[in-house]
């Protein structure tokens, strides 16, 4: 009885009793969710266009952010550092397409996944070798990102909004909108969608797969850089981020591998869900449930809907 009460009744009483705290928790979860969504977005872009499950997306985020910070440390102005890091991501995209993807065309997707795990190791080793392994602070102010916070008085309490979090949410929204326009209005975007639908059909109407893959890896490199900046501004840039980025995999399961809206909704669900769970139910399990909540939620979810929220229905033929 005691247990049932603490699972089903006590947390809700607490939520209603302190609504300002609830809003704060939901907001924190929302921002974390936005960042998960951004990482997941990078995955989805590549998966849709090339069928490669890019395990290296997490390390690409770290790599891009580290490149940016290290360039700035060397005395490069912030705006130039951003451009140069974009350049690095472009080189990376072309390199990956030339040296890895092109040779692995038409392989089983598990093989491609393992190749990206190999790529993860290469990027991690290179990153640590060039930029050093220690955490670095993000150059938030130099990039013109807002700092500080706003208090919002509500329900006899205050809710604190960090400006950087608001900026993160806005930038994420803008980026998703930009991607949506890019996919539906531009020539390359339409080619990308054609490739996502059917590789062979796209080839037969004259779309170059190699070119498209390089572009799409670059696009997710841009997403990685933005994610890295946002994440770095909230905490710091370090390789520990890579493990957190794995949570985006759970987001993908929830949203479906091929759906951009799925990545966003899934990310927000997991971000908010894990914060609420940690705060209101976490004490029942001992703390630290954030480490596995996302995966277990995804696992349970999969049992009922194997293709995710918005994923394409899986049809199997012999």
């Amino acid at each position, binding site marked *: 009885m005691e247990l049932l009460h603490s699972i089903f009744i006590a947390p809700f009483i607490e939520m209603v009793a302190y609504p300002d705290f609830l809003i704060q928790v939901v907001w924190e979860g929302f921002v974390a969710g936005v960042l998960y969504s951004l990482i997941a977005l990078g995955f989805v872009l590549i998966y849709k266009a090339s069928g490669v499950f890019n395990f290296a997306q997490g390390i690409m985020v770290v790599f891009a952010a580290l490149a940016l910070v290290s360039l700035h440390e060397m005395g490069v102005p912030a705006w130039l550092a951003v451009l140069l890091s974009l350049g690095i991501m472009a080189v990376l995209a072309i390199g990956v397409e030339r040296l890895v993807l092109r040779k692995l065309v038409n392989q089983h997707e598990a093989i491609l996944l*393992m190749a990206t795990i190999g790529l993860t190791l290469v990027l991690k080793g290179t990153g640590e*070798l060039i930029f050093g392994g220690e955490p670095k602070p993000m150059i938030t102010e130099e990039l013109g990102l807002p700092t500080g916070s706003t208090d919002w008085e509500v329900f006899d309490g205050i809710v604190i909004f960090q400006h950087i979090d608001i900026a993160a949410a806005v930038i994420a929204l803008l980026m998703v909108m930009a991607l949506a326009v890019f996919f539906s209005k531009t020539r390359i975007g339409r080619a990308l969608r054609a490739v996502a639908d059917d590789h062979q059909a796209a080839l037969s109407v004259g779309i170059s797969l190699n070119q498209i893959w390089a572009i799409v890896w670059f696009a997710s490199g841009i997403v990685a850089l933005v994610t890295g900046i946002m994440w770095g501004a909230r905490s710091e840039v370090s390789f520990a981020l890579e493990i957190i980025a794995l949570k985006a995999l759970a987001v993908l399961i929830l949203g479906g591998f091929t759906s951009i809206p799925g990545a966003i909704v899934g990310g927000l669900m997991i971000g908010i869900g894990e914060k609420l769970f940690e705060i209101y139910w976490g004490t029942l399990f001992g703390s630290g449930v954030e480490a596995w909540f996302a995966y277990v939620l995804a696992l349970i979810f999969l049992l009922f809907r194997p293709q995710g929220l918005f994923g394409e229905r899986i049809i199997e033929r*012999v």
Partner: protein
Amino acid sequence: MLYREAGQFKTSYAADQALLPIVQDRIGLLVILVLTFVLIPMFASEFFIGTIMIPFLVFALAAIGLNILTGYAGQLSLGTGAFMGVGAYSCYKLTTLFPDINIIILILCSGIFSALIGVFFGLPSLRIKGLYLAITTLAAQFFLEWCFIRIAWLYNYNDSGAIEVPQRTLFDVAITGASATATTRYLVVAGLVAVLTLVAANVLRGRIGRSWMMIRDMDIAAELMGIRPLYAKLSAFAFSSYYCGVAGALMVFMWLGSAEVEVFDINHSFLILFMVIIGGMGSLAGCFMGAAFIWVLPIVIRGIPSVLGLDVLAATTQHINNIIIGVLIIFFLIVEPHGLARLWQIAKEKLRTWPFPYAST
């Protein structure tokens, strides 16, 4: 050249079904066994045995576990480290609960617990497959890791949160704990690994093993031919986790001596996956080759700067090591997706037809 089966006729079904039908293979195995059980314990240094041979054998066993699941049954798993942890922690609990029972029996029993956990986390495989499944095994990885930290009962409520290996003897010779020599520990590990490998080889070519391969090659077709996916998949998870669990128990009891959660983290899951990829998916010999390669390579790379007289930081060699392993993984996937085991097979094939480039039939 030397490796030729010409003149070796099989005159009975038993000879036809033998595990190693060719004489040269049997001689080769004998040489390896003599090397493992006689020459290395006699001549190798304690250091070599303790830091290279024992970890190599432990990782080879874990790689066999993962290979059963990924290479033979086609279910990609990223949770190997956690299943090894289950074996290690349950072995630790068993030694505290039953101090009088022989440690080797306990190590073998601890695999049963990880098999049970493996079956539990294998349940989603009945409904989902491929990449989605790979991600659900991450759930096992992180959830179990959390359990190892939070459930204090697992490490007997000690303050450090680590599990310490008690002293145990076999025939009055210390085989675990601080006073056991590396050579005795090595012999125990080698014996267990040899027996378990033999069991695996026979299971894999038997009915169960073939049903796993059918599921891997095309699950729907296998189902139509009367393979039950429920039994095939879950038994693959059980077998695989059993091997991983025993490997985990051996790792802590015979190699490390004490362990914290970090030993079973996701990086170790990946390490073992790399061993399987580089060694060769769907090959037992490949597990040993992969484990030897991945374990010995960093040691060699670490040694190179001092040989050349360069002054390089330890961290730098670690990074270079990461890069090299990553490049090798990609290289193998591109050039030879079946890994070192396949290269070995090609070499044997060449020897068979030597001096001709290919066999005339």
